[in-house]
């Protein structure tokens, strides 16, 4: 038996715990500024130098990676980042298992079925042709309701599909509705509210639960500024 096994450490977080700061992946784009502001209010200050994709918060608690939104679950799934903050939309598409530790009040959007203005709600008996960037969510949503659909996967500018005649309906994230409006489209049905979540790799959480719970306490606390 090696010497490190000769001693036991039942009441302390020792050998099985990873040292160093907690690793957190944040998405580039619309969510980043909101996360940064929220963390600042809770006393966690960080900023990325120009073109840098890795930063530390000033207290040394967190090492933060900036990654593409859709890639974020992949980094957390493989444990490269133990924690991550992203919308439920990308979690649906990835389909992997994460701990969902906390919801955030900011960044919520809606996953909507939309069509050209004047379109009526689709009849359940007829197959629905839908263009979307979110094929898993869309298939799952309509199949669970017994509604047959034909799916067209697009990678962006989904609003073009009804205009150009590719598909009469789209499923997409709607934040303010201004993009839909500008393209003469309207929401037919709000399918689900999409919330921003703090996720964790299950194994990472189990090994670092104390420090992660401390982080959660910080995020749940009300700062002096907020109390006032």
């Amino acid at each position, binding site marked *: *038996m*090696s010497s*490190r*096994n000769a001693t*036991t*450490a*039942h*009441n302390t*977080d*020792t*050998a*099985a*715990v*990873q040292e160093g700061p907690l690793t957190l992946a944040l998405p580039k784009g619309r969510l980043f500024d909101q996360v940064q502001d929220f963390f600042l209010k809770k006393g966690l200050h960080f900023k990325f130098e120009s073109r840098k994709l890795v930063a530390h918060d000033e207290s040394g608690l967190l090492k933060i990676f900036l990654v593409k939104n859709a890639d974020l679950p992949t980094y957390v*799934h*493989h*444990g490269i980042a133990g924690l991550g903050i992203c919308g439920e939309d990308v979690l649906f598409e990835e389909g*992997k*298992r*994460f*701990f*969902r*530790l906390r*919801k955030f009040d900011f960044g919520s959007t809606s996953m909507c079925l939309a069509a050209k203005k004047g379109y009526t709600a689709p009849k359940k008996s007829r197959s629905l042709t839908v263009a979307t960037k979110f094929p898993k969510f869309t298939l799952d949503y309509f199949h669970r309701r017994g509604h047959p659909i034909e799916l067209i996967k697009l990678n962006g500018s989904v609003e073009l599909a009804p205009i150009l005649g590719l598909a009469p309906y789209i499923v997409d994230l709607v934040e303010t509705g201004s993009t839909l409006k500008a393209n003469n489209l309207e929401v037919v049905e709000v399918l689900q509210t999409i919330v921003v979540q703090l996720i*964790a*790799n*299950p*194994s*990472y*959480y*189990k*090994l670092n*639960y104390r420090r992660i719970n401390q982080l959660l306490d910080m995020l749940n606390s009300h700062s002096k500024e907020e109390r006032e």
Partner: protein
Amino acid sequence: MTDSKKRYLQVPQGTEGVHVEEAYRHRRITQELLDQFVLWGYLPVETPVFDFYDIYEPLLHSTSRDVYRLIDREGDLLMLRSDITLFLAKQMGLWLREEELPARVCYGDTILRHQNVEDISKNEFFQIGAELIGKAGEPADLELLMLLSEIFSKLGLHPAVHLGSHQFLTTCLTELSDTELNRAVTFIRDRRDDSLRELLESKLSSRKTEVLTTLFSFIGTPREFERTVYSLGGELSQLELEELEYLSSLAEQLVELGFSPDLRIDLSEIGAQPYYTGIVFQAYLPGLDDAIASGGRYDKLLERFGFECPSVGFSMLLRKIEDLVDSSIGRLPKITKVEGAAFKEAFHRAQELRKKGEVAIL
């Protein structure tokens, strides 16, 4: 490389070849563990590579999509071995007799599962484990967990073992329907405390909801667990309390016996498989994206194969941890090349070296 060679060298997803030094090390580590199992009286069993699919189908749940299926010449649907525990349960049902209990068995073999091309995190091709069949209660649970501890010590690994109870879950959530219980299991396992609270509130009092949500999100040392149970115990039924006290007692004895991994009581460990009935545990190591070993008590699993008896066991996916195993295990021996002599002379010199246990080539 020619086009035809490129075509021949393509490897299907979910397969793995292991070569020379790595294969040598893999076999030595496997042998080391099997030797250890035998020292504890756990004798090896070999399971078939394939079996009829339909008998396992109800036990597969979400993993059914990862199973390779094939049709034999008679038209029966078969499946390749994707989880040795399941195949072993049937074998034990076929083979065991009442008078042979308790039986101690171990295994170490390849498993075959579909693996998503975009997900290399579950490279799981080799499963090794042990089962104690026909023995219920604390002595059996202790024996199995101490064997797991011994295995980690042998490998030079110091993981965290999180111990929970499926029995506590089924004892305290009797008021939930099957569908609600399945949802609760998901919320507990994924640590979605808010969703769990919301679900329990619809069935239980607000105080009971709070107590159970606190307990299911609890992770801590055995001492911290005792304190938590002490402070919340007044809200629990006698049966619920007994389950938690059983975990405390088990943990206390494990510590006394010198359990080497860091032990945590973790009531969110309720088992991914529905066949668990008692204790459940998983082991975690830093740097790995998933649990390295898992196990627990499954007193009803063998019943499905016509043999009613309690059982407790664990398995680990060895390939993922081999790089972390103590480097002294499975180190390739020094190879001496006998040179500068006629073949006959060199052959005899090599034989002399081999007699001394050295590796010699000509």
